[in-house]
Structure formats: structure tokens, C-alpha cells
């Protein structure tokens, strides 16, 4: 180990609050993380944002480590972000795309994981269409598992990058009012954000058609709105969610145009929010379905490109902290 990586290792640990050891071997969800832990990720990510803006973006903190991206569900954006994050920390990154269509899912999942585990990776970054799949893997493998989105459960790095985007623009999370809008029922992004924003002291609202609001969501500490104009009133942040096309056409909502009419984000609708309200979207956007192009492209108000940029930094911070925990940094 050379001097440079030694000093960066200390830098990473310096962002853990005094007396606190990063306790997680895996990052399976936001639920259960403390505000101190979340701040540690965000503080470290701030440093990586700067690193990522330099011409030489690469450090050696995770040199020699192996990261396997195991994506059972297509996702160019998240996979690329993790890939860059790993590479910028000097790790070897391998991408595995696994099709689930032809084989029995369960067998593929555990068998594939055990096969990969035998190659001694340090991290498995897992995306899977079923809630709880990363947890199942985490119980079986001996490396760190990072949940890159599981079913309708959690997408922790998305919530962390959302938090970083907000914090860098607003300077804080505490006391802000955030409206998460759209298909809450099927959204892992919404769940992770509800946990994170709640822990950090923000007021969270969920706004959407009643058929896309999950049962008992109010028990997660949010206020529920089915009327978008009321839901957006005086909010600081409008977080739009993607509406999957297959959920249109009569199953959950009657039609695309009806959805846009009542739940699409337009400039008029945004007018009821605070004048400096910011707009977020985890991407990819359905322009004209959940969000109007005029709003999405307003660089003064839209955080959408920040989210993409900071996603890499947040994932670097997560990898780095998990590596610290494993005791062989």
C-alpha cells in the first residue's frame, strides 16, 4: 500500500462521526441507517464530487478490489454510475447482465451469486426485479452486497444521491418539505427517500392517484395527498417518479392523458410550490406523461442532471465506506 492511498483512507474515516464505526457490511436499504451515517456518506460524497470534476478523476483507494455489477434487470444509468464509481476509486469492475426470462429465477439468483462469490469479489452490486433479492444474496455470500434497486423495496444509493443533490443546492435537508409524486406503489425510490428524508428531519408528502398509493404508507411518517395542487402547495422539493407504461391503460389509471391532466408536473401546477422549489426525477423521464419538458429542462429549478452527476460520487462514498468496514482498507 502506498502513501497516497493511505492518506485517502484516513480521509474517508475522518468523515465518520467520532466514535462511530461504519457498521454495515452491506448496503441493502436506507431503513435502519442513522442520520450520522447518512451524513457520513454525504460528506464523503462531497469530496468525491470535487474529485470527479478534476481532469484526473482517479484515485487508488480501492486498488485491487473487485466489484461485480450483477444486474438482473436492465438499467444503463445505475450500472454505468456504479461502474464509473468503482473505476474512479481504482477498483476492477465487472458487469454481469443476467437474463431471468429463460430460467427459474430463484435458482439463477442463488446459483449465480454463489458462482460469482467463489471468484472472491469484494462487492456485489445487485439489481433485481424482486423485493428482498439482495438480502437473500447477502445472507449467502461473504462479500459486501450493495442494493442497486430491488423490486418495489429500496434503492438506497438513489435516495442518497437525491439527498446530496438537495443538500448541495439548499444547504440542508432538515426542515424542508418534499413532495414525492406519482407511482408511489411501485417505487423503490420513493420508499428509500421516505426513510432517508424522514431520518434527516424533512417533511415528506406523497402525492399520487389513490390506486398508486400503497396501503398504510402514512405509517411511514408521510402525509398523503391525492390532489396534486394541494400536495405541491409550499413545498421546497418536487420529486417526480417515473410511471411505467404497462401500468397505464386502465389497470391503475385510466389513460395516459388522464394521468398527465391530474398528476403531470406542469409550470402552472408548480406555481403553488415555493418560488424557489426544485424539481427532481430519478430518470428516465417520460416527457409529457409525468413531467412537462418545459419544467424538466428549466436549469434554474431542475436538479435532474445534478442527480446523475452526484450519483457517481455517492456510489464512490458508499463503496469506500463499506470497504473501510471490512477492515482491509
Amino acid at each position, binding site marked *: 500500500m502506498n502513501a497516497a492511498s493511505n492518506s485517502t483512507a484516513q480521509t474517508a474515516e475522518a468523515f465518520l462521526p467520532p466514535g462511530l464505526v461504519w457498521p454495515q457490511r452491506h448496503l441493502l436499504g436506507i431503513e435502519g441507517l442513522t442520520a450520522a451515517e447518512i451524513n457520513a456518506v454525504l460528506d464523503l460524497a462531497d469530496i468525491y464530487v470535487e474529485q470527479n470534476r478534476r481532469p484526473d478523476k482517479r484515485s487508488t483507494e480501492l486498488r485491487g478490489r473487485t466489484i461485480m455489477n450483477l444486474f438482473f434487470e436492465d438499467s444503463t444509468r445505475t450500472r454505468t454510475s456504479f461502474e464509473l464509481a468503482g473505476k474512479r476509486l481504482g477498483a476492477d469492475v465487472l458487469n454481469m447482465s443476467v437474463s431471468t426470462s429463460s430460467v427459474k429465477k*430463484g435458482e439463477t439468483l442463488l446459483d449465480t451469486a454463489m458462482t460469482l462469490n467463489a471468484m472472491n469479489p469484494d462487492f456485489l452490486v445487485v439489481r433485481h426485479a*424482486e*423485493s*428482498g433479492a439482495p438480502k*437473500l444474496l447477502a445472507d449467502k455470500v461473504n462479500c459486501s452486497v450493495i442494493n442497486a434497486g430491488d423490486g418495489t*423495496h429500496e434503492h438506497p444509493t438513489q435516495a442518497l444521491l437525491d439527498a446530496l443533490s438537495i443538500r448541495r443546492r439548499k444547504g440542508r435537508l432538515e426542515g424542508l418539505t418534499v413532495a414525492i409524486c406519482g407511482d408511489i406503489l411501485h417505487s423503490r425510490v420513493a*420508499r428509500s427517500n421516505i426513510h432517508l428524508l424522514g431520518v434527516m428531519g424533512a417533511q415528506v408528502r406523497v402525492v399520487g392517484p389513490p390506486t398508486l398509493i400503497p*396501503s398504510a404508507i402514512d*405509517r*411511514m411518517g408521510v402525509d398523503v395527498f391525492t390532489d396534486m395542487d394541494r400536495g405541491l402547495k409550499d413545498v421546497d422539493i418536487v420529486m417526480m417518479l417515473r410511471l411505467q407504461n404497462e401500468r397505464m391503460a386502465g389497470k391503475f389509471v385510466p389513460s395516459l392523458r388522464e394521468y398527465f391532466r391530474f398528476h403531470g408536473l406542469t409550470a402552472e401546477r408548480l406555481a403553488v410550490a415555493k418560488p424557489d422549489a426544485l424539481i427532481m426525477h430519478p430518470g428516465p423521464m417520460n416527457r409529457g406523461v409525468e413531467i412537462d419538458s418545459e419544467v424538466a429542462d428549466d436549469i434554474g429549478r431542475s436538479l435532474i442532471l445534478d442527480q446523475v452527476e452526484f450519483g457517481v460520487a455517492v456510489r464512490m462514498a458508499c463503496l469506500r465506506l463499506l470497504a473501510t468496514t471490512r477492515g482491509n482498507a
Partner: protein
Amino acid sequence: MTLAAFTNARLLDPATGRDEIGTLIVGGGKIAAIGSHAKVPPSARLVDCTGLCLAPGLVDMRVALGEPGEEQRETILSASRSAAAGGITAFAMLPNTTPVIDDIAGLEFIARRAREAKLVKIFAYGAITRGAAGQQLAEMGLLAEAGAVGFTDGLSAVSDALVMRRALSYAKGFGRVIVQHPEEPSLAAGGQMNEGEIATRLGLSGIPRAAEIIMLERDLRLVELTGARYHAAHLSTAEGVELIREAKNRGLPVTCDVAPPYFALTEVDVGDYRTFAKLSPPLRTDNDRRAIIAGIADGTVDAIASDHAPQDQDAKRVPFASAVPGVVGLETLLPIALELYHKGAVGLLDLLARMTIGPAEILGLPLGRLAVGAAADLVIFDLDRPWVVDAGAFRSKSKNSPFDKRPVAGAVAMTVVDGRIVHQQS
């Protein structure tokens, strides 16, 4: 004739209310004498039961097997051994095998395999509909003649109201009960666990309690219409218990059962995606759990069945949504049920009634009682002996128990079927 005398036993017979220390004499596979004054013939082989309870062998009215078709999960022989170890001397198996038991050939196969296993008494339900597909009536008359103890589509509900109405009317003619899995399938579609906060947090699709309530309410109307005997299996909700209670008060010929997971566990036990806590119907809330216990205590619940559903590792070591629901239960039926007695929630005779005379009467079987002349089907157990459930040691081929490692009190010492010892605690 060889005689056996079970002496100094605490004789427990829910059918007559007998609870006394005494002797039970068995001869020719039947109960020859019983009571505190029963004379022990000098030729009798003595089995000293000091400190032990002796009750009618348990009758389990809801057991799923893997034979025919999925023998890696459970065979008739492995289930028989498992039942015997659990103090169960008779069980009724669901027709959801491969193929479905919807004709007499299927029933005859089961009967032959049960004779070969020669451990416990195995009865079978016939399917209500062909292939248990919910469309065309199965040959209920022929199935009844061939020994079907009742009719059920087992794991799936008969969802079509007209089919259900005709099934009830038709089965009535043959004096058999219709057993329903009371769950409205369209409302439960895609559901993985009880709908509510926990499902929402875990990102799992919920099954609302209304799925059970709606189906029960509909079925009770059809029972009024037809006058047929109806049995609701494995109730999971407080409202479900209340509906049956009201129906009984109105004089409708309805009965119901529950399974140990529904009074010992709740949706909280799903925890972090524990597939062994995935059941159909799903585990519900603590309020439901308590209502079910109250139903057992006041007799609204007629039977406690194991709802034994063996699943192999491939069916359970997968993400929660892909996991097949169901848990094994033959070897934990008695100790988990006895928790209700030990907690003081249900009297011992009442509790045993739900596992003996209760289900026997629903199925019209002359079992589940300690009466002279009745088959000597007995369970002898230590009411208080503590032990820890070890799923790995189950006789069942499948180990999918949510009760693994659970400390329990009450252990089977010996199981007797027709006077033969089919299980003995080593």
C-alpha cells in the same frame, strides 16, 4: 387376543369430558375398557403412563402431500411417519397433487399407498372441480362412494359463484362437506403477504383482509341458499372468525378450522423476507391472532389442522415473491396448540377437542374419542416436557417450518393406531 393396558394415565377424552387418572385397555385394535376402575387382565402387557396424558389420537383435517407427482417434497410414507411422530393418528389429505385427485383412480392410489405405509389412517378429499380448476364439477358421487371424506379444491378457492352454488347443492346429496379456501382470488392476485404497513415497507404486494371476508360472506349466502354443509379452512382474520360465529348463531351448517401459524405468528414474523413465514392465506396482525384464539376457546373454531404444506429448498430459498407459500406442521401441531393451554387461553379438553372429535365429526369419521369399542387410536404425551423444535430432525421430507428453534412444552411419548404402536419417543 393380545391385550395391552395403559395404566396410571391421565385419560383425556374431549367427547365425554373425561379427565381422570386411570387405565385404558386395548384389545384387538379397539378400546376394550377405560376408566379409573378398569380391571387390568393378568395377560395384558402393561404400559405404565404415570405422569403422561392419554388422549384420542389427533385427527388432522388439512394436510398437503407431494405424492403423487412431487415426491421430493413429501410421500405418503414420509408424511405418515411425520404424522405419527406428531401424535396424529388420522389425517385427510388435500387433492392438490399431480395429478389432482378428481377421480376414483386417484383415491384408490392413495388408499393403496396408505395401506402399504400402514402407519396412520389416511383419508382423502376429492376435488370439487376437475383439476381443481374451478370450472366443471368433479365426479363427486363416485368419489364419495370411493371414500372421499369431503370435497375441496384445496389450495385454490372456488371463485365462480355459480359453480360454488352447484357444488354445495350437489355435495349435500351425498352427505359430504364442502371445504373452501376462503380467498377472493381476484383481490388476492399477486399478493405476497398481509396488506399493510409491513408489506408496504418491504415492497411486497399485499393481500387485503377483505379477500377472505368477501369470499366468506358470499359463501355464507350460498349456504343459506342451498342448506349445504360448508367448512371454511384456515381462517386468518378476526372478521372471518366473527362471520362464522354469526353464521352458527343463525343456525347455518358451517364449521371452520385454523392452523397453528395463524394463532402463534403474525405478519411481523415475515421479518426480513422470511419465506418460511409465507403462507396462504397470509399471516395477519396480532388482533387477528387474538381473535382466532378467542374463536378456539369459545368453540367458533371447530378444528385446528396442521395445514401441513411441505416445500423443498428450491421453493423457499428464493426471493419472497417467488417462494411457494406453506409450512410443514405435522410434528408441531400438538406443541404449538398446547401453547394456548399453557398460556391459559384455552382449556385442555377444549383444545384437544379441536384436534380430535371436532375434525372427526366434520368429516363424519368415527374417530377422535376414547370409547369402548372405538378404534384404539391414541396419543400419549407429556403435557409439560420442554423441548426445542428442530426442523432438521423432522420425519417429514421438507423442513420448511417457521417454528424451527422455538422452545415449546408438550411432547408426544407414544402414538398408537388400531392398538399398534406407530411411534415411540426414544
